[in-house]
Each structure stands twice: as C-alpha cells, then as structure tokens.
C-alpha cells in the first residue's frame, strides 16, 4: 500500500522533533545536613548540588530558622590560617556536582530562631538564577 505523501512528511517531522527533545533543566540536591545549635547561635548546612543539563548559579538561601543566611566558603591560606569568605553566588556548571562540606563551601545560618537538635528538620529555600526556587528539608545531625 502506498503511504500518502502528507503522512510520510508528518512522520518524518515527528521523528525530527522527538530527536531534538527539549530537555528539562533540573537541580539535583543530595546529602544535605545541618549542624546542631541552640537558639541564638549559628549553624551550617552542607549538601551537594548538581545543575543538570544547563549551567546555573545558587544566588540566595532563605530559611525561617535563622535571622541571617549567607553563602560562605572557608579558605585555607599558605600560612596555615583558615578564613571565611562571603560568596555572592555559587557557580554550578552543568552536570558537575558542587560539594558543600566542612572546611569548604557551606550555607551559614546566623542567629538560630530555635534550638536545632539532632533529629530535627529545617526547611531551606534555595534560589537559583535560572531555575528559581527549590525547597528542601534538611535533617539536623550531630557530625
């Protein structure tokens, strides 16, 4: 049986479109944990973020559990000292996991609004330049 020309064109077009499927960029977050601390004290959150498919930037973090939330990086200098640097944004190259870990990148929580004890959870909103907000629950664990 002879396929009508129109149908053939249409199936080719469908094939082309499905091949160049538009990929949904996505943020993958794993291994999040927060240090315990008492109300009024400070804490830090550690995690691993991967921006899948496209570059992005972590530009802000918000939580009701602390009065100030900042992106920080601890940096070891040649003289053996460690200093902390406030970061305006964290670059997330596509498909490259960026690790926040003790002595490196971390989310600093200043002035905890309540005690954070092992077993508690804390709600954190991560704001990305391109992909908007991602809300996560972070378990508090004694390191």
């Amino acid at each position: 049986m002879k396929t009508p020309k129109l149908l053939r064109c249409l199936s080719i077009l469908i094939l082309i479109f499905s091949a160049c499927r538009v990929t949904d960029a996505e943020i993958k977050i794993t291994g999040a944990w927060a240090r315990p601390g008492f109300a009024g004290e400070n804490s830090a959150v550690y995690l691993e973020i991967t921006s899948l498919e496209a570059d992005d930037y972590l530009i802000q973090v918000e939580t009701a559990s602390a009065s100030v939330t900042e992106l920080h990086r601890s940096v070891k200098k040649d003289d053996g000292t460690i200093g902390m640097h406030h970061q305006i944004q964290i670059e997330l190259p596509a498909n490259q996991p960026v690790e926040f870990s003790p002595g490196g990148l971390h989310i600093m929580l200043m002035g905890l609004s309540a005690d954070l004890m092992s077993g508690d959870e804390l709600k954190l909103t991560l704001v990305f330049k391109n992909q908007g907000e991602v809300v996560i629950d972070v378990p508090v664990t004694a390191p």
Partner: protein
Amino acid sequence: MDQRKHFPNTKTYSFYLIANLFLHSACTSKPYAWRGTAYDPPKLAPDFSISHETGNSFTLSERKGTIILLYFGYTFYPDVCPATAAIMSSVFTQLEPSPDEIQFVMMSIDPERETPEAVDEYMRRFHPDFIGLWSERDQLEKIQEDYDILAMREPSENPETYLITHTARVFLIDQQGFLRAHYPFGSIPEDFIMDLTYLIEH
C-alpha cells in the same frame, strides 16, 4: 579460616605470609612515620597556666603523663572549629581513652565574645571529656605567640558578628610535655588514631 578463601592456593598463601613478615620487619626497623607533621626533634611545649574562678583551671606542665591535643578556636563560626571538634570526637569514640590518657583542649581565641563557661559547655557537646579554656586577652596573646597561632579579626559591619581568620591546627603534646606533631585542618580521625596509638605504646 575465612582468610583462606582469598588464598585458595597454598603456595600463594605462603608467599603472602613471608612477604608480610618481611614487610613487617622492614617497617619496624625504620623510625615511626608520623601521620601529622612531626617535630624532629620533639620540642618542649610552651607552658601556660590558666586559672580563674569560673570555668576550667589548667596548667600544662601539671598534666604530665597525659597526652594533650591542643587546638585554638572559637565557637561563633559554625564550620572549621566544630568540624575539628567532631573529628576529635570520632577519635575519642574509637579509642575510648580515659581522661588521664588523652585530653582534647580548645583554647578560645575570642575572649571578648565568649566566657569560660560557654567555651567549656560548647566543647562538652562534642564529648563529655573535652575541655574548653578561656583566658584574658593579654595572656592569650602570649600563648598564641608561643604556639605560632595567627588570629585576625575580620572587618565586620556588625560588631557582634565578626569572623576570625586563624591558624587551624591541632598540636599533639606527649606524656612528657613535648610537642611531637601538629595536624592541619583536613586531617582524618585515622591520622590521630595512628599517632596516638604509637605514643601510647612507646
């Protein structure tokens, strides 16, 4: 007999045993390779004596017989100092030393914002036997100088929330009061466990 599973061939197993014996004797004849940065020769640890009405009193030279792990830090910043205390906590959990055998001591480098009780309470969160020390600024500066500790207060808009860039190093002082090694931030519990075990056994 579990081991034999990995060495089904008797010949291979014998070879492994002989090689192991050889390696063992080769290693024991060499000086111990410290995991930390060793003091060669060991250096007498500068003495200091802290005494006040509240908080801990502590005189280093009176602690002979005990291995002292000494760190200089502050409680405000939630990253490097608690990470160090957590690593030491893991060391203590694994070695289970008595307070006469090993002590971990943190000297506050932030006496203006901290109190003797607060430093000590903070340390005990990580392990009930950890000790937090506090001294007046002028005495602290002398101790920092003796141990080559740099501590610089960073400029801050809010005078309450300044950060301190500081030397993050753990000192290992042996039972005779000699500095034997120091450890940079990033050392793992295993590094301390190996060196402490060596010190206890020798």
